[in-house]
């Protein structure tokens, strides 16, 4: 369907404009802060001369607008800071260069992404399964003990701060019971078992926190769904309860759930800041937080843009999936 392709192209173009505006905004905000990144770079003792040198090297002596244009140009053509032997190259697409970390931002993001993605994707699968199944069980047992229990779990999940639950999990399962490693990350390519074993606690913690809203959404959607006429039709056709619920009821529930899921996952892939901190995982969230502390504008802009891109992408994917799930949209 060429319509769909055209739609995606249009949306991606819109995304580009949004990201341009966003990057400009981040630049302006950071230059409004009365602190000088060059100060940190020049170290101690920092003479006015060295400071000036650092400024020039980092191209901070140019106007804010010029710096922003340099940034844009770097994406297309790459950038070089300084000259001669001391020159630092950042190949295209260059989303900036981190002087404190002495690496191009692109490389930094690509290094950290697998960690964040591992946390987010694993947790996402768990919370989706947990949230939807508990939500369905709650709806089917409306008003009874299982319903109250699920709603209670949801309430607890929504109201518990993630660091509290995370620290508690580390304390109980890591130290007291000594069941799981308390920190560290093992790449999937190295050892899938160790990878999963190191991630299991953050997955569960994150899943419990996130599942809460899915339980509530699934429950209310399912209750609504079960009152619809076509559910009665399914029963009148002679369908058993399981078929009524799963085949006829769940489909309608999934549409809003997938929407929420896409947006949550998109947001989380941009960095699960608290979870990463608690479990000492060097993901994107960790990268961003350290960068803010060090006034590492290049990294802040890079990670912010990357997160924004993921959220915009998630929105787009959700819209397309919505069309696939609901024939009323795609066969309009």
């Amino acid at each position, binding site marked *: 369907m060429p*319509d*769909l392709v*055209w*739609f*995606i192209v*249009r949306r991606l173009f819109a995304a580009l404009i949004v990201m341009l505006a966003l990057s400009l905004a981040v630049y302006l905000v950071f230059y409004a802060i009365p602190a000088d990144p060059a100060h940190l770079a020049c170290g101690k003792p920092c003479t006015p001369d060295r400071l000036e040198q650092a400024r020039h090297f980092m191209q901070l002596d140019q106007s804010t607008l010029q710096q922003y244009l340099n940034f844009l140009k770097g994406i297309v053509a790459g950038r070089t800071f300084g000259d001669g032997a001391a020159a630092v190259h950042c190949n295209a697409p260059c989303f900036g260069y981190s002087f404190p970390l002495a690496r191009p931002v692109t490389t930094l993001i690509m290094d950290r992404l697998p960690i964040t993605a591992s946390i987010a994707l694993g947790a996402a699968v768990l919370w989706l399964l947990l949230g939807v199944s508990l939500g369905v069980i709650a709806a089917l047992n409306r008003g009874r003990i299982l319903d109250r229990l699920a709603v209670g779990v949801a309430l607890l999940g929504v109201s518990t701060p993630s660091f509290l639950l995370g620290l508690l999990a580390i304390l109980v399962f890591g130290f007291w019971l000594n069941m799981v490693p308390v920190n560290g990350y093992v790449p999937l390519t190295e050892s899938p078992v160790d990878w999963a074993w190191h991630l299991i606690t953050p997955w569960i913690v994150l899943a419990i926190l996130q599942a809460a809203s899915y339980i509530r959404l699934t429950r209310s959607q399912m209750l609504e769904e079960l009152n619809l006429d076509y559910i009665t039709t399914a029963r009148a056709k002679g369908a058993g309860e399981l078929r009524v619920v799963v085949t006829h009821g769940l489909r309608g529930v999934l549409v809003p759930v997938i929407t929420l899921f896409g947006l949550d996952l998109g947001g989380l892939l941009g960095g699960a800041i608290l979870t990463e901190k608690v479990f000492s995982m060097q993901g994107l969230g960790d990268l961003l937080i350290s960068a803010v502390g060090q006034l590492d504008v290049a990294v802040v802009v890079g990670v912010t843009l990357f997160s924004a891109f993921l959220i915009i992408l998630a929105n787009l994917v959700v*819209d397309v999936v919505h*069309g696939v799930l609901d024939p009323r*949209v*795609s066969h*309009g």
Partner: protein
Amino acid sequence: MSDELLNLKDVKKYFGLRGAPWRKAQSVRAVDGVNLVVRKGETVGLVGESGSGKSTLARVATRLLDPTQGRVEIGGTDVTRLRGRRLRPIRRQIQMVFQDPQASLNPRQSVGTILSTPYRAQGIRPTRAQLVELLEQVGLAEQHLERYPHEFSGGQRQRIGIARALAMKPGLLVCDEPVSALDVSVQAQVLNLLADLRDELGLSYVLVAHDLAVVRQVADRIAVMYLGTIVEEGPAAQVYEAPAHPYTKALLSAVPVPEPGVSRDRIVLTGDVPTPINPPSGCPFRTRCYKAEDVCATERPVLEPVQGSTEHRAACYFPEPPTSERKQ
């Protein structure tokens, strides 16, 4: 002419329609060129099936919707482009009664508050006596003023809706399916009430309904709509006894009659009403018409006098002959 309460001139109303975000917006021709005059003291029945545009036309006539094209004259004044404050005096002359009294009455307001809304919209504080008079006009009583909509039955709620419409003493009431949400026994009460109010207050009505029997009970003049246009118009008795447009004829013949064992010559139309997004060329009814010929696809037929009557008009290339000739 001073007795013209409402004059619609070549009114069109198109709606934009969106499907999936990646699809082109389409336009629905809900009303596609309608001329209609309502004179003082008369009840015009606007009938048609779903998608005929009758409800949209009613909303354009009361200026709840802006026409895409054409002219709306109320009481001889062109009100097509009037808005907001300047529309207020017009609202005194023409009022609307809606189908679903449940949905059109604010559940959090008492009947008294509901009835005083039209006054306050005009910057007037109604007296209790005025509100009581309104209630009594529709067969309710003072004790109902403090109650809330949910405390009433469907029929009573529709009475409240009518009372609210009467507050500004309008000359014309546009009723959109006023009884279709009601039970048969209650429907008759409301129809009788409408007839009584017409006699007492000299009201005029535009009665929009899909139920042809309901319209026959109250209307003096009938306009039959199909796909956004009026296909037949005339005095009620003539239209019902001797329909000239094949659509009207089929429509009337399709209405079941409460007489078991009496067989009727039913014209069962095939298919459904085409979509108003892409109406057929020429005569909109030709795709389902049992009389259609090539000429019907060329140009849309205009309303022309039929059966030797100046008031009875149909938009058809092959109108039915008068009943007397049919029998031969």
